Structure formats: structure tokens, C-alpha cells
């Protein structure tokens, strides 16, 4: 089964066809989504009516391109804002978590570590509703007893950020811890010997070493936030981020403008993926 052990050519033929089928299976949905963004028809389906870019650039008519669809454009801006805030918070807290788990030992550490991993196995929908229930209870309490209206604890953008932060932080912590574990402590000691304070040593030696992991964690968290649906869907108010807006359009019956936006999303993800991979390679 490994190269040094030969199998019959029949075996290899079957195996290789299986792999080809597997990769076709992986690629098929993405290819059709992209292809129909350029079909000059009102529906993302056959027959092929010819090539067009109107689902991107058309300003008026029944085909309004993505760059002129104000509703979708607003939802993209909203998703970006959510993703940026979530990324900043998650990366920062993940960084402190990584230092805590890699550098200190204290009673209850392994218990806290298990707790820290839990968000990975809580379904996103549940994480969403539990935060919804809790924040509403807190908001009701403040309203009933203190007559303070905490608007940000009601379904809306702040709650979406909070919900996404709750599980993205775990993933970022794992990414940053993995690199911090490989750090050679003697480098930090050298900085201390040369007269640096511990804080200076961390900022001038350790953090630059962590940079690839920090950027990797930031990219992953940006994408996860931007593309998240389950948790977001439970916590949105009246403003719809991109995934929710797309989902609602999809239920109404889709036009190829959704394909066009999918193409943009794929391009965006590809760029971020390439940046991430090259960062990890250099590291």
C-alpha cells in the first residue's frame, strides 16, 4: 500500500479513479457557483444564455450587479465591521491565554484548559441561543431594577460580535499556543541579561517571534467571523450581516447576483488563504 510495497495495477487504477472522483466532488459546487455568475440569465441554471458581467457591474434594469446592490453592499460593510472587531478582541485574548497556558502552572490549569476547549464542541446554534437567553436576562434585570436600558444586550450587532468572539477565541488560542510552545526561552533570558525588563523582553523578542501565528490567527478569525452563520443567525437584530442577507435572498429564490457575490467571497478567501499559507511557510 505504500510505494515500497507494490500492488497490482488494477488496485492503483481503482484507487486513482476514486481520488479523481473525490476531488471532483470537492470542487463541483464551487465551480458551478462561479460559472453561473457569468450566465446572462435571470436564474442560476441552464440554459447557458451567453457570457455577461452584468451580475457584477450592471447599474439598472432587472439585473442589478453586486457593485450596485446597496442592500448587499451594506451587509458586506456590516460583516466586515463585525469581523474586524471580533478579530481584534479574539486575537488579543487568545494571546493572553496562550501566555497563561504555556508559561504558568497553577492549580486548576488542566480544568481551565478543558473549559477553554469546550466552545469547539458546542454547536453554534446553541452557543447563540444561550448567549441570547443570558444577555436578555441581564438586560431585563437592569431594566426592571435599575431602569437602565442596556440596548447592546438585545439582539443586534454587539451581541453578534460577542457570540462569535465566544468560540473564535478558542481557535485563535490553539493557533498561538502552538507557536509559543516552540519558542526557545533562552532568547528571552538573553534579553533579560542584556538589561531588558520582562515586559520589554516579551514585546521585543517573543511577540515578533509570534507574529506569523498572530497574523494566522487574525486571518482565520476574520474569515470565521465573516462567514459564520449559525451563531450570527440567532443573535441578529434588524441589520443583516452578509451571510444572513444571502440566506434570506436564497430562500426567496436566488438570482445570479448571489453567484457574483460568491465569486467575490471565493476570491477574498483565496487571497487570505494564500497570505496565511505563505506566512506559515516562512515561519
Amino acid at each position, binding site marked *: *500500500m*505504500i510505494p515500497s*510495497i507494490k500492488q497490482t495495477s488494477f488496485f492503483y487504477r481503482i*484507487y486513482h479513479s*476514486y481520488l479523481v472522483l*473525490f*476531488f471532483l466532488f*470537492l*470542487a*463541483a*459546487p*464551487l465551480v*458551478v*457557483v462561479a460559472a453561473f455568475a457569468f450566465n446572462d440569465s435571470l436564474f*442560476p*441554471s*441552464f*440554459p447557458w444564455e451567453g457570457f455577461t458581467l452584468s451580475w457584477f457591474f450592471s447599474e439598472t434594469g432587472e439585473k442589478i450587479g453586486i457593485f450596485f446592490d446597496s442592500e448587499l453592499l451594506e451587509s458586506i460593510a456590516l460583516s466586515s465591521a463585525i469581523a474586524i472587531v471580533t478579530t481584534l478582541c479574539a486575537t488579543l*485574548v487568545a494571546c*493572553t491565554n496562550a501566555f*497563561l497556558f504555556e*508559561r504558568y502552572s*497553577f492549580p486548576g490549569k*488542566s480544568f*481551565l*484548559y*478543558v*473549559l*477553554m*476547549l*469546550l466552545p*469547539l*464542541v*458546542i*454547536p*453554534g*446554534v*446553541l*452557543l447563540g*441561543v444561550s*448567549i441570547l*437567553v*443570558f444577555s436578555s436576562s441581564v438586560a431585563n434585570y437592569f431594566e426592571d431594577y435599575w431602569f437602565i436600558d442596556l440596548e447592546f444586550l438585545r439582539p443586534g450587532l454587539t451581541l453578534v460580535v460577542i457570540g462569535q*468572539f*465566544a468560540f473564535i477565541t478558542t481557535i485563535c488560542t490553539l493557533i498561538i499556543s502552538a507557536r509559543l510552545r516552540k519558542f526557545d526561552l533562552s532568547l528571552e533570558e538573553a534579553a*533579560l541579561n542584556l538589561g531588558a525588563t*520582562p515586559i520589554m*523582553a516579551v514585546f521585543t523578542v517573543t511577540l515578533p517571534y509570534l507574529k506569523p501565528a498572530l497574523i494566522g490567527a487574525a486571518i482565520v478569525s476574520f474569515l470565521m467571523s*465573516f462567514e459564520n452563520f*449559525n451563531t450570527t443567525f*440567532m443573535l441578529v437584530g434588524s441589520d443583516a450581516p452578509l451571510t444572513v442577507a*444571502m*440566506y434570506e435572498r*436564497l430562500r426567496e429564490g*436566488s438570482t445570479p447576483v448571489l453567484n457574483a457575490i460568491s465569486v467575490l*467571497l*471565493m476570491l477574498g478567501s*483565496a487571497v*487570505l*488563504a494564500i497570505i496565511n499559507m505563505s506566512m506559515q511557510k516562512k515561519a
Partner: protein
Amino acid sequence: MLVSSSTASGSRSRIKLGMWLLLAPLCLWLLLLIILPHIELLSFSLSDPDEGGLTLSFYGEFFNEPLYWRTFLRTAIMSILATALTLVIAFPVAFFIAKMIKGRSKGILFAMCLIPFWVSELVRTFGWMILLRESGVISSGLQWLGLADSGVELLYTDATIMLGLVYSAMLFMVVPLVSTLDSLDDSYIEAGYDLGGNNWNIMREIIIPHATPGIVSGCIIVFMLSLGNYLTPVLLGGKDSLWFTEQIYTQFITRFNWEQGSAFGILLLLLSSLIVWLGLKVTGQSFTKTMG
């Protein structure tokens, strides 16, 4: 640990201070966003909105109404089936990437497995809708080939949901499998053959035991993702998809029956914890090792 040139007691108290400063955000995050919300969910599910006090009526409702517990059971069984299918489909691919090729082509194939998952789940599901619906690509292809007279609706069946679940979770099976298989030394496999083993023996006695940690962590993640999936059953399964997360959504958002929704949430949490615990117990793995 950071040790400065100042006095020992001074540096120790600084270490203590640093630890507390790092401990604070972690504890706030876990307490406010994970632990308390789930406790609140539990207390909601047990509270009586009309009279106050405790009640089990929302759990009773779950067992009395066949639609609810059947949906629950169906979600669990289909998730287990999806996990098994994903494992069977992913294993040969992971084995090929980890053991049968080297160098550049290995990196490229591995990246090809990763790429689709950088794209939003919504986009991937949309792709399957374009492929499978009555006016979709496969249906058109069948008509063009003369295999069908009119449009064939391939959406809205259990098989479609299964396909979507397997597709959306594939990566999370391939990655742990590749990383455990990568660490298996070829010489063990060669030794197995030298000792007269056949393909089947080697697979059962060398490869699968070695890959068990990867199989367990892949299965746990895939199972959780399937159980908690919302988009795939709703979009590919249509109105009759009967997925439990859909029930939770309906209770919370459509019917505004938060107590019932909370009870459903707790039941789903119990089910997932139970199955993960069983999986770890049976295979003798630890949670921390498997997930971290």
C-alpha cells in the same frame, strides 16, 4: 518563567501579578460567555413562566409530542451515519496524501482538500442547490443525455441532506487523519508485509490502531458539526428536513417560546456530550489530547 535580576520575592510577586492579569480575560470570557449562558439556559428550561418556580413540563412536552423526540432521534442517527460515511470516504484520501506521495504533489493535494473550506458554508450549500435542483445542472445533464424526460428533483430528500453533511464536514476528517497517518513510520508497514501479513491484516493491525487518535478526533468534530448544522438540512432538505437545530430556532425565534427552546437546547447538549464521552471512553482517548 520570566526571572528578572531584582530580588527573588519581588520577581515572584511580579510573576503572580502577571498570572492574575492573564487569568482575568480567560476567566471573564469563559464565565460570561460560556458557563453562565449555559446555566441560564438550564434554568430557563426548568422555570415556569406563568407561576414561577420549577417545572419539568417543557421536558415532558418533548417526550409527549412525537414530532419532537422523533426529530431528535432522527438528527442523532443521521449525524452518526454522516460521521461514519465521512470517515469511510475520507480515509483512503488521507492515506494517499499521508503515505503514498511525497514532496510537492503531497502539499498540493493537501491544499486542494483545504481550499473548499475557506469558502463560506452558505456558498458551498448554494452550489449543491444549483447542482441538484429540478432546473439544476445534474437534472439538465440527465435530460440532455436522454436519461430523463423532464426535470428531476434531487433536492429535499434525506440522501441530499446526508450528501451536504458529509461534504461540509469532510475537511475536519481529512486533516486529523492525515496528521496521524503522517506520523506512522513506513517501516512498520514493511515489517508487517515481511512477516507475511496481507493488505487486510496490515490495515487492521497496524494502520488503524495507529490512526485511532486521528479517527476519534475527526469523528467527534464531524459529529458535532452535523448535529449542530442548520444550513444544510434547511436548504438542502427543505420544509420536511426535521432537524433538531431547526426546532430550537423555531421555538426561540418564530414561536418565542424560550422555555421550550431552552429545554431542547439542553437536550441537544446532553446528547452531544453523551456521544462524545462514549466515543472517548470506548477508544480510550482523552478530550484534551483529542481536541487540542
